């Protein structure tokens, strides 16, 4: 039988072999890969490094895929796949956001697997997503003989609203985003994150990216304080 360690290794290997994920660029129909590195900090782990890889695959006019892999020196790794059927509407584009995300909290002996389904809308200066997710939380190594090694948070509301300074197709852009979903984490509804992203197309193939994320705690405890932050930079390569 496939044990949890082998399963995780296989899972991460598959992730590494997949072409890597890029930020979705509205209007882009090119395959793209990306690699980012970053510094992160939160009050639970202290300082740690993150290394992100991803691939963006526009399968056809109505369907795109994205795969994301994060390796972290804090021992908190993530692998996700995003499937996005999309439909052009008179103004902008509607899409279905379907995500599968696995987070391995190796330092704490837990693994969670989150499924998200939502609807999204993007136009020149705005992208918005609203959906729901379910999280399965498992101890690692998983005890197959106990029902108490796994619990399920069945319902969570997910949202993302991102506003861009320029049109999403322009060669440079800056965006501001409030969300509880990133490519590497699907947080609970009451745990928003705030992100600023900048991108610049060096030429037809290379794009440089910089993202800053801030994660407060206690916003809906009405006693908000700093919890964590992250700065990451890297390149996208469009084929």
């Amino acid at each position, binding site marked *: 039988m496939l044990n949890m360690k082998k399963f995780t290794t296989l899972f991460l290997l598959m992730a590494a072999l997949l072409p890597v994920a890029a930020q979705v660029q509205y209007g882009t129909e090119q395959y793209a890969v990306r690699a980012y590195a970053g510094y992160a900090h939160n009050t639970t782990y202290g300082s740690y490094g993150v290394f992100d890889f991803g691939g963006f695959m526009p399968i056809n006019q109505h369907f795109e895929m994205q795969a994301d892999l994060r390796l972290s020196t804090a021992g908190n790794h993530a692998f996700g796949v995003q499937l996005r059927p999309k439909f052009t509407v008179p103004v902008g584009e509607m899409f279905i956001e379907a995500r599968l995300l696995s987070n391995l909290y190796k330092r*704490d002996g837990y693994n969670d697997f989150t499924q998200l389904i939502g609807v999204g809308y993007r136009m020149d200066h705005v992208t918005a997503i609203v959906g729901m997710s379910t999280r399965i939380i498992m101890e690692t190594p998983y005890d197959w003989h106990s029902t108490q090694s796994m619990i399920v948070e069945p319902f969570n509301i997910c949202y993302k609203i991102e506003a861009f300074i320029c049109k999403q197709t322009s060669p440079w852009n800056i965006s501001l985003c409030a969300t509880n979903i990133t490519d590497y984490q699907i947080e609970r509804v009451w745990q928003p994150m705030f992100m600023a992203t900048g991108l610049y197309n060096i030429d037809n193939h290379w794009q440089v990216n910089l993202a800053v994320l801030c994660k407060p705690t*206690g*916003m809906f405890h009405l006693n*908000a304080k700093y919890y964590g932050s992250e700065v990451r930079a890297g390149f996208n390569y469009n084929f």
Partner: protein
Amino acid sequence: MKKTIILSSIIALLCACNPDTWNLDVTGMFSGSSAGIDQRVEDSFDYNNKNGFPHIYATAESYSVYVCTDTHVDRTRDNWEKFIQAYRADAGCPLALHLGDLVNAQNHWDYMRRPVDSIPANPTKKDTLLVVAGNHDLYFNQWKEYVRLWKTSTYYAIVETPAGKQDLYIFVDTGEGILGKKQTEWLRTTLNWANTQAFRHIVVCTHTHLFKLDSSQGITSNMPLEETYALLHLLKQHKVEMFWCGHDHSREVTNLGSMTAIIIDALFDREPQPAYLIATMADAPIDYRFVKP
């Protein structure tokens, strides 16, 4: 456009007319007004260093602990008074706990505290009430009021039976949804020490819940995921038997392998189904039941 502005103004006016809206420190969503967790832990340590930790003596090998949470005392305090009367009347109860959100908002601290001092003690026994801060006890800069009346929010207490068996209760402050670095280190050190002693039961008591598996009653803010897993790991690694918390207002019992996490109902007067928990501490695993006030 004109209609939208008028409608928005009416809604804003209605909100402003609702006294409950005044009880929400909306600015706290962006910057909490009370001291941050590390400073609060320092304040608690200052008190602990000067006064030590509570050591309580039970009169029998089996005793009861009364646990309530989320009284949100404001204009009324009926359930809170009933809770105090109940644990004081129980000759087998040396310890009562309140897991935070003592008051709903500012200006009710003395009103909330008064029954603790005015309801007559039971002459046949001694009992102790211990509390921990919740988020409602922090916003509007209320930590100062909490400290004035309740002194500490990060500490432990030991209950000792006549035969010398001891149960450990650890209180951690999660009023803003995290433990913070200092408190996490203190909790780790305390649990390491606890595992070298022969405690009969180890219980961790706090305000904010770890998980919410039943969404039928709504979902409430809890800790960031990283903090949730780190805390759960720490508790399970150190053989904590139970994790008692509140915050969510609706009961939930989750078996997490060797540990049981219990979200206890709110005791808020305006809660449709208020309840508190009575735990029986004996040589056997902890037994508990929920009681309506």
